[in-house]
């Protein structure tokens, strides 16, 4: 198991290129929460030739829809949702400058191709560990589509958010390499 690497601030092209599938990362910085309904609206905006409601250059999009915050909480439990549902939208956003995605589960070949083409990275958070993950969220603010409720776009400041590099910019993929490494260890 690799050492955990701390990353803070912007993940640029160079940083993305230094990450390898299976790496453990603690990320500190800004992420934008968006899932199904928000993605549909973002693509509609692009089709209409309009600006996105957040700066797209080196942006990190977190596929999630938090539970409501209790009084005194920054946010409710907020783990990753299944990423494949955003596959129809992701390549276009990566081509525009989005640098990283955080979610869980497998991606389509067209997303993997876009990750490689644009030198991006896809991180996985542990699905279902939402109360644990919420502990790393320092602030949360709705920046667009408040009417979508849990599906609104939120800007989060996260501190030491625990992530695994799932797909790296060479196409390395933890979902194939991880199980293969384990199975190889049992065959020895």
């Amino acid at each position, binding site marked *: *198991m690799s050492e955990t690497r701390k990353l803070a601030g912007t993940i640029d092209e160079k940083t993305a290129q230094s990450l390898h599938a*299976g790496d*453990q990362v603690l990320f500190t910085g800004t992420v934008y929460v968006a899932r199904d*309904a928000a993605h549909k609206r973002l693509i509609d905006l692009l089709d209409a030739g309009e600006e996105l409601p957040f700066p797209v250059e080196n942006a990190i999009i977190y596929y*999630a*829809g*938090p*539970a*409501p*915050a*209790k009084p005194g*909480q920054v946010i*409710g*439990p*907020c*783990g990753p*949702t*299944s990423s*494949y549902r955003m596959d129809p939208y992701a390549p276009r956003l990566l081509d525009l400058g989005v640098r990283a995605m955080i979610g*869980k*589960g*497998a991606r389509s070949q067209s997303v993997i191709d876009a990750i490689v083409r644009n030198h991006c990275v896809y991180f*996985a958070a*542990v*699905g*279902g*560990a*939402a*109360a*644990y993950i*919420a*502990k790393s969220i320092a602030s949360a603010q709705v920046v667009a589509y408040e009417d979508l*409720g*849990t599906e609104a776009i939120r800007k989060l400041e996260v501190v030491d958010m*625990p992530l*695994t590099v799932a797909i790296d910019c060479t196409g390395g993929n*933890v*979902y194939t*390499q*991880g*199980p*293969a*490494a*384990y*199975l190889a*260890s*049992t065959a020895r």
Partner: protein
Amino acid sequence: MPRGRKGNPTMRTIQAKDVTRAVAQMCIKANCTLQDDVVSCLERARHEEPWPVAQATLDTILENVRIAKTDNVPLCQDTGMACVFVELGKDVRIEGGNLRSAIDEGVRRGYTDGYLRKSMVADPLRRENTKDNTPALITFDVVSGDSLKIALAPKGAGSENMGMLKMLKPADGVEGVKDFVLEAVRHAGPNPCPPIVVGVGIGGNFDHVASLAKRALVRPLSQPNPDPFYAALEGELLDAINAFGTGPAGFGGKTTALAVHIEQMPTHIACLPVAVNINCHVARHEEVVL
């Protein structure tokens, strides 16, 4: 009361508001406190897991269980669709409202008072959120006796979307069933948040087999199928799934599934329906008898 018929003197009355209160409490408890059978299963899996990445992922999952219970917050942000199984004793009369409305009101209150996420849309294509997580998805059964049993299984969509159903030929037999279950789980891969619980329905018809697969997920993890033939099949499928190497969160490892539960029922001479309904490691279930 129609003339000439007397009310049954042994009929028991249950107040609709008591149903509502019980359902609301179950919604909150199920979503914030993982049941002991699932926690024990996760702890055993952690103990038996040889792969370091998988050990670390299971530690994260168990830490999440502790935080959710201590802080009384949902384990997962997807607090699910409220899947409800009702066994209504034939000698029970509900007073002060109808049973379906009482359950829906319980879901409404539980999801609102408990700060649970509202994930239901009123229409599958027009997709407007109902904002209170209703309606519940209720399966009613009428049984003998004078009690009312309500089981609640909040079901997240990440695992629900990985379900599959197939109408096999009788000639496909047990091998065909095994192949299909393994195909469904392999196809799901890392998406349904492994370690998973696999609910399998076999028999009945197109609609009943799906309900069987869902009902299989409500059974406690420590309880194999009472029929030794099916219990053996559950064990065989569990071993085959855990040989995939998918592991917790799909990062690789031994622990891909915690349990396989099969529910079976009679079917037609020409049919062999099989359905697979997958649950994530946040395998929530509660029940109450009123």
